[in-house]
């Protein structure tokens, strides 16, 4: 499947769209390229293009936990579920499943099960979510995948909404899983469709790695006819799904044996085009970085002559193409977003001698997002300048809790309850309430990863720091706080957990929490927190005095206690009102 050049096609007028394709026969992949020119085109975000690509590939089940910048994939899929049910999703005849899950690991495992059942399956998450799902991800690479399994991971270089900028291509490599990296929403759509085909062909999971700017930028996407969803069909032999050592050893051997074939596939893939026009500088781009290069390419060619170029949109590394480029040029510049993945691998693929430039050598910044201007600089083109502010330097405007957010009242009560202690610890977690780190609250002292608040508070308490408080939201609690609370109950740790229960995942735009608020108390009781030390209170400044007194009493308690501070997220309220 080649990305088509659509520039010569007539624009589809609004009146022609959506096209009615319900009468079309089901078509095979071989002939769908003939259809695509006749299909609808509209602008969509990278995330939306992936969702649509999956549905058009015959998706059976999709699973996810919200996380910027991946959230809109599942949101779009759920919208499609509704439209499909109303008969408004062109050409998609069968209903499919699209569900939020408790965390990325459970989402991944659901997708695995759905693949076991023979359905095309997708799991989507942000980069740090893959750490949570690393166990099923890495092990699923040893399974003989049944229904195509596509793992979409959205990296966040520049850390717009994340605690690190790790590069998921390393994890794909680590697991020996092939990986697509789209350059624009059109490729995101096409690659998603192809990823399902490939997954079934090589019987392995396939990753799609995107970055923030692709996830959240819109451009024209030309779609093609939807494929029908497959029937339930279990694997013919299930021993390749049972990873006991003897099977796992055999499967690992088989997976490694497949690598040369994937290698060869990569060098001949149309996603990895090689052009050897110039001989001085050779440029390697990957994924979205190609767009920043293209923004400058004409100017570079006019000023300094032709350039040889290898673009990588599919991994493993196209080693043969890389060697050709290296042999043809005097020096190489690698432009990639994230870690210097290609750059580092490159040094192991080619003989030393020529200059290789990129993040490790400083031509491209190691940290943060790429931009057309950073690439320009690396190419030695003159800097572009706009206007400058004369005297002021505009101060940053950090994000903050919404006016009237219940978290503000919770932090107000907590701070007052703690004020008489000369020493205490407040360990927090990931969500809107992380903003409690900033003034005027200055209420928390740590935020590391999902669920860590309870574990860290427990660790600090178990070596003697008192009082210790964990602050965690309801969604994060179900994500991975619960297992830490079980440790606390088991060891009767002296600590207090504040669950800020706003009945939603606020930070990512108010997705429903996996279980409703009403279930929280029975869950706490069920794992064994003493019922006298489970306090459910309303997070509101009108209740301030009462709340302070309750928190104070629990801080003094010997053993684990949980204070649930309840009030609905304002964003969630707004969203509910709109709907």
């Amino acid at each position: 499947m080649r990305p088509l050049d659509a520039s010569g096609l007539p624009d589809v007028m609004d009146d022609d769209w959506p096209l009615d394709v319900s009468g079309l026969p089901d078509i095979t992949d071989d002939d769908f390229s003939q259809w695509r020119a006749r299909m609808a085109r509209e602008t969509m975000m990278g995330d939306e293009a992936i969702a649509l690509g999956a549905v058009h590939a015959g998706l059976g089940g999709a699973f996810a936990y919200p996380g910027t910048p991946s959230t809109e994939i599942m949101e779009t899929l759920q919208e499609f579920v509704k439209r499909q049910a109303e008969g408004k999703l062109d050409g998609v005849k069968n209903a499919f499943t699209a569900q939020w899950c408790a965390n990325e690991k459970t989402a991944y495992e659901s997708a695995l099960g759905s693949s076991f059942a023979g359905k095309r399956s997708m799991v989507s998450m942000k980069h740090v979510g893959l750490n949570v799902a690393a166990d099923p991800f890495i092990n699923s690479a040893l399974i003989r995948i049944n229904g195509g399994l596509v793992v979409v991971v959205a990296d966040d270089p520049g850390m717009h909404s994340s605690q690190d900028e790790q590069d998921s291509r390393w994890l794909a490599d680590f697991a020996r899983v092939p990986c697509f990296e789209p350059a624009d929403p059109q490729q995101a759509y096409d690659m998603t469709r192809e990823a399902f085909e490939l997954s079934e062909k090589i019987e392995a999971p396939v990753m799609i790695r995107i970055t923030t700017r692709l996830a959240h930028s819109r451009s024209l996407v030309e779609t093609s006819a939807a494929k029908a969803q497959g029937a339930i069909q279990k694997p013919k032999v299930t021993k390749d799904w049972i990873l006991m050592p003897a099977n796992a050893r055999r499967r690992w051997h088989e997976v490694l044996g497949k690598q040369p074939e994937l290698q060869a596939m990569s060098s001949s893939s149309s996603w990895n085009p090689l052009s050897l026009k110039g001989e001085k500088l050779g440029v390697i781009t990957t994924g979205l970085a190609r767009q920043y290069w293209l923004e400058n390419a004409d100017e570079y060619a006019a000023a300094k002559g032709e350039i040889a170029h290898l673009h990588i949109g599919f991994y493993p590394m196209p080693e043969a193409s890389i060697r050709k480029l290296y042999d043809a040029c005097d020096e190489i510049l690698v432009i990639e977003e994230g870690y210097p993945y290609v750059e580092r691998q490159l040094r192991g693929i080619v003989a030393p001698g020529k200059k290789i430039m990129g993040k490790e050598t400083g031509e491209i910044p190691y940290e943060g997002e790429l931009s057309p201007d950073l690439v320009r600089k690396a190419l030695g083109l003159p800097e572009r300048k706009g206007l400058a502010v004369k005297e002021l330097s505009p101060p940053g405007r950090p994000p903050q809790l919404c006016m009237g957010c219940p978290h503000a009242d919770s932090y107000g009560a907590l701070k007052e309850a703690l004020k008489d202690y000369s020493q205490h610890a407040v360990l927090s977690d990931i969500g809107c309430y992380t903003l409690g780190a900033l003034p005027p609250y200055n209420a928390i002292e740590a935020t590391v990863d999902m669920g860590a608040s309870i574990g860290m508070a427990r660790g600090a308490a178990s070596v003697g720091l008192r009082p210790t408080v964990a602050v965690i939201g309801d969604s994060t609690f179900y994500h991975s706080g619960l297992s830490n609370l079980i440790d606390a109950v088991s060891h009767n740790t002296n600590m207090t957990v504040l669950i800020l229960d706003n009945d939603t995942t606020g930070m990512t735009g108010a997705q429903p929490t996996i279980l409703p608020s009403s279930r929280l108390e029975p869950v706490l009781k069920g794992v064994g927190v003493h019922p006298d030390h489970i306090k459910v209170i309303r997070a509101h400044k009108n209740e301030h005095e009462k709340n302070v007194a309750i928190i104070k009493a629990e801080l003094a308690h010997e053993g684990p206690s949980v204070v649930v501070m309840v009030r609905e997220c304002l964003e969630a309220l707004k969203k509910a009102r709109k709907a």
Partner: protein
Amino acid sequence: MKYDIVLCGVGGQGGISVSVVIARAAMAEGLRVKQSEVHGMSQRGGEVLAHLRLSDKEPASPTIPLGSASLILSFEPLEALRYLPWLNAEKGVVVSATTPLKNMGTYPETEKVMSELSALPNKILLDADAIAREAGNAKAGNMVLVGAAAKLMPIKPESIEKAIRELFARKGEQVVEANLKAFEYGRKANS
């Protein structure tokens, strides 16, 4: 033809829907469009930025290079200043609302912000909120700004009106009319 727009403001000011309106109108006129948005954490009262690129050829980068934007459309005066490095130094125009949104302690004195803006070579500064109130919907300040920028953009006002109709249709005729009126008042403010 190439026309790059930086849309900026503070989380919650409706920058994304403005971006969608302009993009749709441009597409209806046969232009190629690329949009880049900010989602997630910064939507909580932080700086919000969208890049919108209109061109007769598919734009390559989803983000605008420095010194290249033809227009900064800002819902807040300090935010307009923040993105000046993206504005084309000779031809670029700033269209900005003048009501400061001071949700941080470090916000500079309003006069200083306004004097920086007034010193710009090409600018249209207007009290979008007041004009929106006059038009009958205090919340439609963003459409007032689109109206004020209408004659600068390579798009017919009728196409923008059509896009407003389409985008807000689901919310009912009243919302559609309020936004159309705000757009019209904005156009009058810069006629």
